[in-house]
């Protein structure tokens, strides 16, 4: 059981999987001698060589399209999109193509590929180095979408993603890379895709969240527990597609109060879906409206520091919302 940062968890797991299975290779911009802009592949080209660590041209559509072609021909590519904000040119190959390969060939071909995407803000990234891009992936049948928030989950879920026989979008929150430390076993464990995890038990309010917001929510939960004696249960979705409706509804059935906290803007988002699941299948358990805590509806997110700080839901803002919801 070693303590590590989230980026270390990603790097070590990639390294272990690359050593385990020679069908795995990586493609992306600057993943070679540079080791990736976040150093997720530091030292990899030296260990695995240029054939398995491919420094690609600056062309995201081809990164995904080529990875897809290799995947349907026996390989297990792990593609890196340098920043989530730059995945848009590749959406066609990912959402339009990879997601439909198994269904469109009735299983004749499959696409065992993982697309790693550093996302999220609070890092002075401005409008184009801060984006959350999960919505379009979470909406698309044929994709799996994973968004771990701890080193433990990152290790277990990245292994599952790489070993899965379906295309998996693996979202890594940039701010958690070095901010979040935690224990993660050295063993070859996996965590199941599609299962949420209760990160804090509580009786009064259920928070459903993921990514960096898990940590803001945990802080908020501690503060309201101390200041107001409100006990908040926190469900970490971990997988955004397929969503674990069972765990969400089970928690709400006990607390009767549901709040979704999300860094992405709220309109037509993962928070909308979680709310809709509760409003349809958990309705009779509800004692209060299903509340959402999200940023304002402006393009994520301003470069200037005060505005960026205001944009991202803070522990304080979440704590206030918990208090309000608990009182309804």
């Amino acid at each position, binding site marked *: 059981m070693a303590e590590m940062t989230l980026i270390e968890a990603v790097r070590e797991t990639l390294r272990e999987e690359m050593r385990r299975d020679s069908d795995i*290779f990586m493609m992306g911009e600057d993943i070679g001698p540079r080791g990736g802009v976040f150093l997720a592949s530091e030292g990899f080209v030296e260990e695995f060589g240029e*054939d398995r660590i*491919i420094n*690609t*041209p600056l*062309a995201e*559509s*081809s990164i*995904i*399209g*080529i*990875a*897809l*072609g*290799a*995947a*349907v*021909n*026996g*390989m297990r*590519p792990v593609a890196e999109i340098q920043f989530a904000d730059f995945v848009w*040119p590749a959406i*066609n*190959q990912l959402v*339009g*193509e990879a997601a*439909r*390969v*198994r*269904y*469109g*060939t*009735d*299983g*004749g*071909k*499959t696409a065992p590929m993982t697309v790693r995407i550093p996302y999220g803000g609070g890092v002075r990234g401005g409008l184009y180095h801060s984006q959350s891009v999960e919505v379009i992936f979470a909406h698309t*049948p*044929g994709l*799996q979408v994973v968004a771990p928030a701890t080193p433990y989950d990152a290790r277990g879920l990245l292994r599952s993603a790489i070993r*899965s*026989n*379906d295309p998996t979008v693996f979202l890594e929150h940039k701010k958690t890379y070095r901010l979040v430390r935690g224990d993660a076993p050295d063993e070859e464990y996996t965590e199941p895709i*599609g299962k949420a995890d209760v990160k804090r038990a509580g009786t009064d309010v259920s928070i459903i969240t993921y990514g960096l917001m898990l940590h803001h929510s945990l802080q908020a939960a501690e503060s309201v527990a101390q200041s107001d004696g409100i006990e908040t249960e926190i469900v970490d979705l971990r997988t955004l597609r*397929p*969503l674990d*409706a069972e765990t969400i509804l089970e928690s709400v059935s006990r607390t009767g109060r549901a709040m979704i906290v999300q860094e992405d803007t709220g309109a037509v988002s993962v928070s909308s*879906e979680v709310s809709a*699941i509760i409003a349809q299948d958990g309705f009779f358990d509800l004692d209060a409206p299903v509340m959402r805590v999200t940023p304002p509806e402006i393009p994520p997110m301003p470069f200037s520091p005060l505005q960026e700080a205001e944009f991202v839901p803070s522990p304080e803002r979440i704590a206030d919302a918990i208090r309000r919801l608990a009182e309804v």
Partner: protein
Amino acid sequence: MEINVNESTRRITAESGLSWPAGLSRDRLLEAYRTMCLSRALDVRIWTLNRQGKAAIAASAQGHEAAQVATVMATDPTRDRYLIYYRQLTAMLALGTTPTEMLMQFLARDGEMLSAARQFPLHGSHPRVDLFSFSNVVGTQLPQSVGVALADKMKGRDAVTISFFGDGAASQGDCHEAMNFAGIHNVPVVFLCENNRYAISVPLSQQMPVESIASRASAYGIPGVEVDGTDIVASYEAIKEAVDRARSGDGASLVELRVERLLPHTTDDDHTRYRSAEDIEKMLELDPLPITEAMLRRHGILDDATDAEFKEAARRAVDDATDAAEAMPFPPVQDMYRGVLESDSGVKSNG
């Protein structure tokens, strides 16, 4: 025979077949012509089935037959891979797909082998040959084909990937990205462009400021050749050269086959809206069937009896296939829930 982009396509005439290039024989040419006759008869039938309201949509291979049969002859179906476009009826027949199997696609029948009738005809993957087309989104197959070939290179397999596309697809960003990567990494792929001068209604002059697509190969450090796609021998030779190059580890090539699209873009189109009478006139002179027939007769490979036999056999095969395919039911509703993900229950779910 040397073919290069500086040489005008029309200079490569049927006479280039006077001495057969390696790999071609009188028998193979006769077999190729037989396949072309079958393809044409089936193609005509499919159009009719659309007009009868039985086939929802069809894109015709008429005009592309010689180019496609030459492509298959120049490759090895037992080890090569084919990312087709949507106009490759002749290529699929040459690769051993039966007329009944083809008609099941157009009629969306239960047991359709490429996609279980979830997709348009010619989309999905083939159970016997490594042939597939994932989508109708033009251009996406180009990077995918590079990835397929990259995997073979990584694994040291001697397979060659044939990447079919059209002149229209050459305008997509994916075409640039795919050829650039293939050039850098020397992958065993042949970019095979069937240039019929139109992207639906958009003529070449509105698609690109240059005369040929092959001329762009130099921008990617790969060889490019432009060939008369109605000349089965010239086409075979150009493609074979590219396939051999890929197989021997020398990387990618771009082969542009100049052909004519004899029918409208699809059964939904009416090309008199955008093609002049002269253009249509002129195009009809480039029908590869009479051109190939004349060439074979000139070389004493084909006689009246054989020609009649081929055409009669084709007619019968198409009639039988029509009966067989029409006799099949549509896929049952419950099959639509199967296999979105490996982990799927395959039963109906709403989220």
